[in-house]
């Protein structure tokens, strides 16, 4: 069953100039999966999430969360969701415990239930030992986990997190990923937005690439990678002229002396690596990454 479904969502902002942030986005997110919206800055990810989470009205289109209409039944939707906004900050004199406890009370829990929920969520994000420290004394990653804990403590069925690991170091980011996957294993549905490719690859069950307000691709990681004609990449350091590459058949990205050559299959890749090594060049090959497909789909590559 679908946890979230949008049909033709359009959002137009009218300020000094008219901006069409979403141009008819239709997506469906299944119950119990972690779905990632991947896109460059300004792609419309946050706008989509804010509409789905009842914070923003769409200009056109429909959206449903767990069977409730986002436009006409926002109060029902709000009972089942929890949101972590983009670039969320903390009040310095609040503690992680206060965030989780009071937010749980606002969900209608009794004091005892709120205490249990706060403890459970703070333990899940490994902040239990720091629960009574003020946020002013916590690191960036700990603050972010405090906010995520406040969302987790809600026990909401659908969690919506807008770039929750943005600005975190690698260790803190991996901690958050582990928490999110743990929530999915408990049957929660998670809608995550990110522009970090590794994050999308590591945590997503399915994902959609959004660009300029439109869905450029949707599916599992393999589905998305399958969209590319070339399945392998060869990184070569040095001059490519003697390697017999065809300008028509091979896509090449140049970064100074380093070049990434995209080829159709592993045989072609190994042949190219062999030629390069014979010519005294450094070369290595690997299957294409999500980033390779993403760059191709959203453009902006240096060719």
């Amino acid at each position: 069953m679908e946890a979230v479904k949008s049909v033709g969502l359009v959002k137009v902002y009218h300020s000094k100039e008219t901006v069409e942030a979403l141009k008819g986005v239709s997506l469906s997110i299944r119950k119990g999966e972690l779905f990632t919206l991947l896109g460059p800055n300004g792609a419309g990810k946050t706008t989509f999430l804010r509409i789905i989470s009842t914070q923003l009205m769409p200009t056109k289109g429909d959206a449903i969360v767990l069977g409730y209409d986002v436009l006409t039944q926002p109060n029902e939707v709000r009972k089942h969701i929890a949101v972590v906004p983009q670039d969320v900050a903390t009040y310095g004199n609040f503690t992680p415990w206060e965030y989780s406890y009071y937010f749980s009370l606002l969900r209608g829990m009794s004091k005892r239930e709120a205490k249990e929920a706060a403890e459970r969520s703070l333990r899940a994000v490994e902040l239990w030992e720091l629960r009574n420290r003020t946020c002013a004394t916590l690191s960036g990653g700990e603050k972010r986990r405090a906010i995520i804990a406040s969302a987790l403590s809600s026990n909401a069925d659908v969690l919506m997190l807008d770039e929750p690991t943005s600005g975190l170091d690698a260790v803190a980011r991996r901690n958050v990923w582990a928490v999110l996957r743990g929530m999915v294993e408990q049957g929660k549905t998670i809608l995550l937005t990110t522009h970090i490719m590794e994050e999308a690859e590591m945590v997503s069950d399915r994902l959609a690439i959004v660009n300029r307000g439109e869905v450029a691709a949707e599916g599992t990681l393999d589905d998305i990678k399958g969209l590319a004609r070339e399945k392998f990449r060869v990184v070569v350091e040095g001059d490519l002229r003697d390697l017999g590459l065809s300008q028509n058949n091979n896509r090449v990205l140049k970064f100074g002396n380093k070049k990434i050559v995209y080829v159709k299959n592993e045989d072609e890749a190994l042949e190219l690596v062999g030629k390069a090594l014979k010519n005294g060049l450094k070369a290595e090959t690997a299957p294409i990454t999500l980033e390779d497909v993403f760059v191709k789909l959203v453009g902006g590559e240096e060719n």
Partner: protein
Amino acid sequence: MNAKLIKDTLIIAALKSVPDFKRQPLMLMFLGLISAMPLYFILVFGGQISSGLVGAMVSTASLIGIMAAIQDITWDRYVKIREMIVAMPVHPASYAVGVALAPFWLSAPGLVFFLAISLWLGVLPLSSIGWIVVSLIVCWAALSSIGFVISTYLQKASVYTLNSISNILGIGLVFLPPVYYPEEQLGQFSWIALLFPTSNASSLIRAYSGLLQLSSEMIVARWLILLAVTGISILVVSLKAKWREA
């Protein structure tokens, strides 16, 4: 009234005040000192200490009302706690009243202190305490609702701009009109007291305490002005403010 509405209001007020109560006790002293400062000048340079004490009480309720309504809403937007609450099953009225109530709780020790001093000095009679408390609550409600109007209409202004506006308004509404001094001192311009919710509250308290002679018509007029300011501000906010952005 819906029990959840009241419960959520109290939870938001607690969320916004308990951490400050616990960790910012100096802030409580600071809030009281701002309102107490004019008393020092009244004592040193002469003036009616009774009016000064009434002014200190009105000032405590008013400053916290207008400043907090603007600053709290603004900071809630800035740290995005508001976005999280919008996506919860919480009524916007619970949020607004909770946000306004929190600083009122924070100012309560100051109010009690000034009230106790006034009763102890015999400046205010014990029999008028009910009217004094009601006047202060309505004054706080009026100033808070003015604060909400400003934060609603200046949504795109920066946090720092809105903080400055709230400070200027707070000072302008509390220290300039006859709040700390009797309106009679303005002579033929004493009608100015009618223009500000703060000076109306101050005059009402003085009238109920026997410090100012006001006809019953004038008392009713002052109540009407206070309630009208509050009512109109709430109406404007409820028409203009959008819980879910358009």
